C-alpha cells in the first residue's frame, strides 16, 4: 500500500499514533460514552456505523493525499476495536449471569478466545483479499478495491447479530429473567 500510494514513513506513523491515541481516549471515556448512549449495544452499533462509513470513505478516496482525512478515516475505521470489544466485555457478564452461575470468567475467556481467533485469521484473510482484488481495483470502487467493500459488508452483517444482545443490558432485565426461571423451577 505504501508503494502504491506513495506513502512515506511519517504518514504511516501518523495514522498508527493517532489511532492508538484515539483508542486510549475512547477507553478512558468509555463510561461517559455509555452514559450518553444508554447501553453498550448502542455503542457497538455506533462504532459499526462509523467503521462502515469510514470504509466507504476509503473506497472513494482515490489518492489518499490528505493526511488529516486519511488519519481520521483510519481512526474511525478501527473504532470497533476499543468500543466494540470493550462493550462486548461489559455485556458478556450479563449474559453469563442470566444463563449460568459463577460463569463470568468462562464467558469472558471464550470471548477473548474468539477475539484472538479473529486476530490470528485477520492477516491471512487480508492477504487472500489482497490477492483477489488488490488495493488498486478499477471502476466504481476506485483505488480501495475489493478489500474495503468486503470489510464494510462484513461490518453491516455483524449488526444483525447485535439484535440478540439487546435485552441483556440492564440489571432489571436480568433480575426479571432470574425471577421467571426461579418461578418455573418452583412450579416444576
Amino acid at each position, binding site marked *: 500500500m505504501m508503494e502504491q500510494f506513495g506513502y512515506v514513513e511519517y504518514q504511516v506513523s501518523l495514522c498508527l499514533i493517532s489511532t492508538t491515541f484515539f483508542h486510549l481516549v475512547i477507553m478512558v471515556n468509555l463510561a461517559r460514552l455509555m452514559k450518553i448512549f444508554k447501553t453498550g449495544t448502542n455503542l457497538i452499533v455506533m462504532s459499526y456505523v462509523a467503521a462502515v462509513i469510514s470504509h466507504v470513505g476509503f473506497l472513494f478516496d482515490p489518492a489518499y493525499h490528505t493526511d488529516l482525512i486519511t488519519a481520521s478515516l483510519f481512526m474511525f475505521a478501527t473504532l470497533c476495536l*476499543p468500543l466494540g470489544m470493550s462493550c462486548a466485555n461489559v455485556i458478556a457478564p450479563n449474559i453469563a449471569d442470566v444463563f449460568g452461575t459463577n460463569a463470568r*470468567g*468462562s464467558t469472558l475467556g471464550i470471548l477473548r478466545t474468539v*477475539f484472538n481467533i479473529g486476530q490470528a485469521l485477520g*492477516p491471512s484473510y487480508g492477504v487472500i483479499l489482497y490477492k483477489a482484488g488488490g488495493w488498486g481495483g478499477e471502476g466504481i470502487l476506485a483505488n480501495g478495491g475489493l478489500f474495503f467493500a468486503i470489510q464494510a459488508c462484513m461490518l453491516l452483517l455483524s449488526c444483525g447479530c447485535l439484535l440478540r444482545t439487546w435485552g441483556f443490558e440492564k440489571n432489571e432485565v436480568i433480575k426479571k429473567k*432470574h425471577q421467571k426461571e426461579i418461578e418455573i423451577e418452583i412450579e416444576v
Partner: protein
Amino acid sequence: MLCTFKPLLYFVMYRPFYSPKKVINPQPNDTPPTVKPALLGSAVDYFGLGLVTPLLPFFCTEFAGSVDSVGYVLSAQYLGVIFGSAAVGYLSDRIGRKNTLMIALAGDVIFFSLTGFVKTVPTMCVVRLFAGLFTPLAACIAWVQDAAGNDELARAKNQGYFGGSAVIGFMSGAAAGGILGYSSFTAMNCVCGAFALFALVYTFFSLEPTRPHSEQVSKFHSIPSPLTTNPFFPSGKSRKLRVSRILSKTSISSRWLSLTLWLGASLQP
C-alpha cells in the same frame, strides 16, 4: 514537559464530554484499589507483547536467515493465547481470580524471561506458545468486572481502565523495543519478566474482589457451592435448557460478532 502536556491531555480527554463543574460520577476515587492488580497484569502482558513483536524480524533474520519465520512465531503465540484465554477464564471461575492471575503471571515471569535466551526459531515458537498459554487477560477482565459488581456504568469505567492499561503497556513495550533495539533483546525480556514478577507479588498482597452476582444466584437456587453450575461446563442435568440457550445466544451474538469485529480491527491496512 509534563506540565506542558497536562492541559492538552485534559482538553483532549475530558473537555468534549463534560465540564469540571458538572461531575457525572461524584466518587472522589474512580478506581477502586482492588482493580490495580488486574490493570498491572494486563499492562505487563501487553508490555511483553509490544516488546517482542517489533524485534521478532531481527531475531528471525539472525537465527533463521530470513524474516519468513516471524509468521510461525506469531502463529504459535496466538495459538497459545487462543487456548490459554479459555482455560484461564474457566480456571478463574473455579479457583478464583487471584490464584489464576498469580499462576498466569508466574508463567509470564518464566516464559518472558526465557524469550530473551532462546537461540533457535523452533524453540522460540515453543516458548511463545507457552507465553501465550499463560495469558492473564481473561482473569484480569473478570477481576475488573467483579470489582464493579452489577453496576453497568462502573463496569464500563473499569473496562475503560483495563483497555487504557493495555494500550499503555503495549505502547511502552513497543517504544522500549524500538528505542533500545535488538541489541538489548535479552536484557529487555528479563526486565519484562521482572515486571511480571512485580505484578505477581503485588497480586499476592492484594484482596480479590467478591463475586456479588454469583452469590445472589446461588442463594436463589439453594446451591451449596457457587461453583456448581457453568454454562460451558455444566454439571447438573437440569441445566441442559440453559446450556442450549447460552450456546445459541452467545454463539450467535458474541462469538460471530466479535470474530468479525476482530477480523475488521486486525486488518488495518
